[in-house]
């Protein structure tokens, strides 16, 4: 797979992105700060994992990456820029430029593959609709190309003539992976692609995804709350809490030496063979994104919070392990 030499090694650059839900009903105005100032980059040929609990803002972040923002969601400030084929596209400054890039350079794999394919049409039509216009081949050649692609993913060509409800959950998700990769895009976003599957199927799907990514050399943003999946597949890992990135680093470093107390807690809660220690859960509830706590958003639940944490927002800085962390007392948590 040829890698065009672009201007920067980053395929995706996100700068100070703020995305809020602005609600104004019956005279009451409310702003839910789903994404509140996120800076991140994703390099070529890497799998970047995003982890966080539900309503941490990861889904809103994903939506803002692909430009699927609809009212009442609004991009308040910041930018999202992609590097495709040597050309930079700013998602929100040049929305028309995104249209031809969709699926050819940027594709998505969504959660809940149950309804993701059109239930009243056969699978082959989804392929035609999504990928046909990029390939520019006649019907027979296109079909052959798709079948060859399916074959590489260990899927039989009969899948194309089936209706989505006739396939099993695992099959459907594999078809979705095939659909998302048939144009050989440079960037793939996967949002909880294995959450609804049982463990064995999950393993197969993850292996498939890794195989495809390696072959194409694409960048993948892989979102899931399940840290054990991240351990298996992500190269780098970013932890999101309350709409902010609080730690980022290589997976190995994060698991071995988490710098942020939240990360430490997440990793510590993973079950390990032979480990029978009792686990303690975090106190408190996830923060209200419409009225988040002042200063560091984690401080109400943090076991090592100090006075400063209630006033000042800790900036995202280089950590002791080479990644980034946003904590005034980074590294002071005991390793699990």
């Amino acid at each position, binding site marked *: 797979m040829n890698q065009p030499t672009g201007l920067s090694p980053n395929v995706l650059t996100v700068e100070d992105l703020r995305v809020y839900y602005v609600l*104004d009903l*019956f005279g009451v105005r409310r702003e839910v700060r789903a994404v509140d100032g996120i800076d991140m980059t994703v390099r070529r040929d890497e799998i970047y994992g995003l982890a966080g609990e539900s309503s941490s803002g990861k889904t809103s972040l994903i939506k803002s990456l692909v430009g699927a923002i*609809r009212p*009442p969601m609004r991009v308040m400030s910041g930018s999202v820029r992609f590097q495709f084929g040597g050309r930079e596209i700013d998602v929100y400054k040049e929305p028309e430029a995104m249209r031809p890039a969709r699926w050819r350079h940027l594709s998505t794999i969504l959660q809940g593959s149950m309804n993701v394919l059109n239930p009243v049409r056969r699978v082959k039509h989804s392929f035609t609709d999504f990928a046909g216009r990029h390939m520019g081949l006649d019907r027979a050649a296109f079909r052959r190309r798709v079948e060859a692609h399916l074959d590489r993913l260990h899927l039989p060509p009969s899948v194309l003539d089936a209706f989505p409800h006739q396939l099993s959950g695992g099959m459907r998700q594999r078809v979705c992976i095939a659909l998302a990769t048939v144009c050989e895009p440079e960037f793939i976003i996967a949002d909880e692609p294995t959450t609804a599957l049982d463990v064995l199927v999950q393993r197969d799907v993850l292996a498939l995804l890794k195989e495809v990514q390696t072959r194409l050399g694409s960048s993948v943003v892989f979102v899931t709350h399940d840290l054990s999946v991240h351990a298996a597949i992500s190269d780098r890992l970013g932890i999101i809490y309350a709409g902010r990135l609080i730690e980022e680093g290589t997976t190995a470093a994060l698991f071995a030496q988490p710098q942020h107390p939240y990360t430490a807690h997440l990793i510590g809660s993973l079950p390990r063979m032979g480990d029978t220690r009792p686990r303690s859960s975090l106190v408190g509830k996830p923060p209200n994104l419409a009225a988040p706590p002042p200063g560091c958003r984690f401080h109400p639940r943090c076991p090592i919070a100090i006075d400063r944490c209630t006033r000042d927002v800790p900036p995202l800085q280089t950590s002791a392990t080479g990644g980034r962390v946003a904590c005034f007392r980074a590294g002071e948590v005991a390793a699990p």
Partner: protein
Amino acid sequence: MFRILRDLLRSNREFLAGAVMVSAVLLLVALSFVSPYDLMATYTVPPDLPPSGEFWFGTTSRGQDVFWQITAALRNTLAFGVVVAGASRVIALVVGLVSGYAGGRIDQAIMALNDTLASLPNIPILLLVYFVMRDEMNWWLLALAASLLGWTYDSRLIRSVALTLKTREFTRHATFSGMRMPQILLREHLPYVMPIVFYTTMNNLIWAIGLEVTLSVLGFTDINRPSVGGMIYWANASSAMVAGVWWWIAFPMLCVAILFLGLFLLAMSVNEYIDPRSRLRRLRTQ
């Protein structure tokens, strides 16, 4: 509850319009109690007079003041609609709740009966009732017949709510805590069912009034009792259009239009308000 009404009146234009229209009609109905004429009598005023300062809506060929006739007509028509809507509501609630809670074969049997009744054409059957009863026909009989036909659509809705409520967590909690079935039904489930009942009541009211107007216009109810459809019937029978007595037809029709539009707007806006999905849709388009 009043806070909801206030919110709706302030922010929802359709609700406001509907409320205004219905209030206007209700005002007319209230006026009917102070009418200076005996409204069942004819030839109490000079006939065929166009609208003027003395006779606001003109007079009919039968010597009746159109304005005061309309007030009584609206009262009778509305009363019919309310009675039918109320009666069929009760039937729909009973049938729907029983069917939903009983489940299994009883549910299937009741729903089969429901669907069968629902697919029958209403007007021919009501006409048949009228035809057969003819001279014995009166207001109450027609109301009874209409109620017996009007509950089928709503009972299905209520049944589906009952089905979901039966298996919800809080029902099981209530049962475990020792609440008895009637108590559960009344205290826990009724609040869920009420919004649907309200929406279906409005719809049913519109249907019932429409039925009354239609049957009266065809001359198939007690035509001496003033009703909106009846006025149009008499106007047609006296060839009002041809004779140029347009006000006899126009004003009843206008009142009918306002009444229906008002009720419809109310029903739609309340339904939209209650349904959280449509509220979200309103948000999205802001």
